[in-house]
């Protein structure tokens, strides 16, 4: 086939598609960009989110709106994230974008969508800075600082803890955010912080810090860190026979933690976005459908991807428009959206006001303990 023929065929095809499209005159077309790390170091999270989005697309079969998705891979790097988002905006001309699960990549993408005035919804970038001061950037997950508040609430109300020691990762803003919010909330509720101890991600032994904990015997030990260090800390705490309850954030919520902690994580509590063991019927239905389709339990990222797509779908369906400005407006005013990861209402900083889930580590799994709603909006 020569070049000219190819062109003719393409045009004919385009005309046909247009014809078929116009037959269903009521259907509203909209283009949704999807930007995720599908290869590279964080590919696991990107693929989970993509699975969630695909499952939502399969379930939502409305005749009156017709969403087309355009997928770009960020290769887990901010540079490729910026390239991908540019392609989605300038060449695919999408109306709205579901973008990135990693905070640093989401920040790179956010500055570009902000300039192009295309609304972007991140399923799982939890860093406080992602949406800060942005008019077109939103997220489906709660932010880092909220987890500290939730854990402090849980410690003082459910565990009736009066004293706490915090073991903070001094190399991470995430850890500091969680720790600061834990301290202010825990003290507000009448608890006493005995000590704030620090460690570095380079450390290989935490005995000196834990010796302090052993001596002070606090009711709870809050360790808002990442699994590489937390795993060792938990094991050493068990060696030192520290009886305090151990609490952590979503940095704990990975199978790798259990590989390092080798059983010492049992009895610890973590805050995270959702639990597959929830009794909520909609969560149960989602877990069942997901497990059937992908032969694996959905992670938090899958649930957040699923919710993100459903939010976009429901907004476009409701406002009956694919205009980015109108979608942006609707996202800003999103209220009581019933998602798998809880009821979602956007606050004025574009962060959802939604519950966090507390899980307890039990042998070979997690036990759903409670779901904690924010009492007041964070602003």
């Amino acid at each position, binding site marked *: 086939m020569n070049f000219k023929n190819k062109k003719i065929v393409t045009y004919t095809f385009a005309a046909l598609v247009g014809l078929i499209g116009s037959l269903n005159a009521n259907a509203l077309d909209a283009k949704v960009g999807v930007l995720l790390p599908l290869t590279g*170091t964080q590919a696991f999270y990107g693929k989970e989110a993509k699975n969630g989005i695909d499952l939502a697309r399969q379930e939502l079969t409305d005749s009156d709106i017709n969403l087309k998705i355009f997928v770009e891979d960020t290769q887990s790097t901010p540079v490729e994230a910026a390239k991908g988002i540019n392609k989605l905006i300038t060449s695919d001309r999408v109306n709205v974008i579901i973008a990135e699960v990693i905070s640093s990549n989401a920040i790179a993408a956010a500055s570009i969508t902000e300039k192009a005035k295309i609304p972007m919804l991140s399923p799982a970038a939890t860093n406080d800075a992602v949406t800060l001061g942005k008019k077109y950037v939103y997220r489906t997950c709660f932010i880092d600082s909220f987890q500290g508040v939730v854990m402090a609430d849980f410690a003082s109300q459910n565990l009736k803890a009066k004293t706490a020691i915090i073991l903070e990762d001094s190399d991470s803003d995430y850890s500091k955010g969680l720790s600061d919010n834990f301290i202010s909330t825990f003290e507000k509720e009448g608890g006493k912080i005995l000590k704030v101890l*620090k460690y*570095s991600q380079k450390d290989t*032994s935490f*005995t*000196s810090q834990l010796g302090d904990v052993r001596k002070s015997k606090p009711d709870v030990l809050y360790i808002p860190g990442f699994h*590489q260090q937390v795993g060792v800390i938990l094991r050493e705490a068990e060696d030192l026979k520290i009886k305090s309850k151990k609490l952590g954030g979503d940095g704990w919520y990975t199978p790798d933690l259990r590989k*390092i902690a*080798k059983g010492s994580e049992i009895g610890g509590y973590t805050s995270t976005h959702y639990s597959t063991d929830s009794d909520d019927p909609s969560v149960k239905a989602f877990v069942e459908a997901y497990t059937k389709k992908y032969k694996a339990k959905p992670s938090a990222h899958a649930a957040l991807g699923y919710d993100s797509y459903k939010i976009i779908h429901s907004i476009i369906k409701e406002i009956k428009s694919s205009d980015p400005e109108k979608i942006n407006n609707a996202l800003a005013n999103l209220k009581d959206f019933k998602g798998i990861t809880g009821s979602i209402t956007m606050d004025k900083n574009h962060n959802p006001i939604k519950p966090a889930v507390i899980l307890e580590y039990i042998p070979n799994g997690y036990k759903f303990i409670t779901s904690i709603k924010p009492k007041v909006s964070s602003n």
Partner: protein
Amino acid sequence: MLDFTQAIIDGIAIGSLYALIAIGYSMVFGVLQFVNFAHGELFMLGAYFVMLFLTMGAPLWVAILFSLLSVGTIAVVIERIAYKPLRKHSRLAPLITAVAMSLFLQNIIQVLFSPNSLSFPINIPGNIVTLGELFVRIRDIGIFSLTLLLAFLLELFLFKTKAGTGIRALAMHADASKLCGVPFNRTVSLTFFIGAVLAVIAGTIQGMATNQIFPLMGVNAGLKAFAAAVLGGIGEIRGAVLGGLVLGISESMLVSYGLSTYKDGFAFVILILVLLIRPQGILGRTQLVKV
């Protein structure tokens, strides 16, 4: 006083690991007056090789033995291809290839095993015994004793065997030792091999104690051990052991007095102070250079 004693006990294990790595730096420096900056990577390679042999189904002692032989051989090969050809050039040249070799080894392991940390198949439990208010891990006593034993055996080797005497002769005066019939290249290789063996043992202990290994684990350990070697007096086996223990215990004290944020900088403060005030280190001897 209680906190003070506890801090000493806590610092002994990490200090022993610094000591084991520092011996390698020290011996190589003694023989070639050259700092092998790829030495920290031998510590990392040791742990990876042990894990590799363990996952292939070898029992622990076989895995450690094979890892000692493999990494020892790698150390000798590195010396032959990256340092030996530059021996006659300026002293800066092999130092730069050493840094390059260190980066190369870190990255090759990241490519082969992924940059993430891997969990170590075998681990030593960290049970403690209490003495009143104080507590000590049984594991740490073991690590400390092993370090002293290895240092003792090494001294025995250096002073009682022909090959060991060769190393000492080379360290004293390279040209004179050649004239007396000490095989230069073979002795240098032997020095690298011994250093690698001790680094592998340290890497394996760390893997088994923390239950995880990662490609950059040698960077921090290597730098600290280098500071320890300088502190104790580079070129001296006993100095390296002492330097390692002093550094480990000092770090543990900083943590127990609430200064953990400054811990990682402390080794380098020591390094600078030693170089300014007593460049030969605690146990180092000043040598008269005859012109």
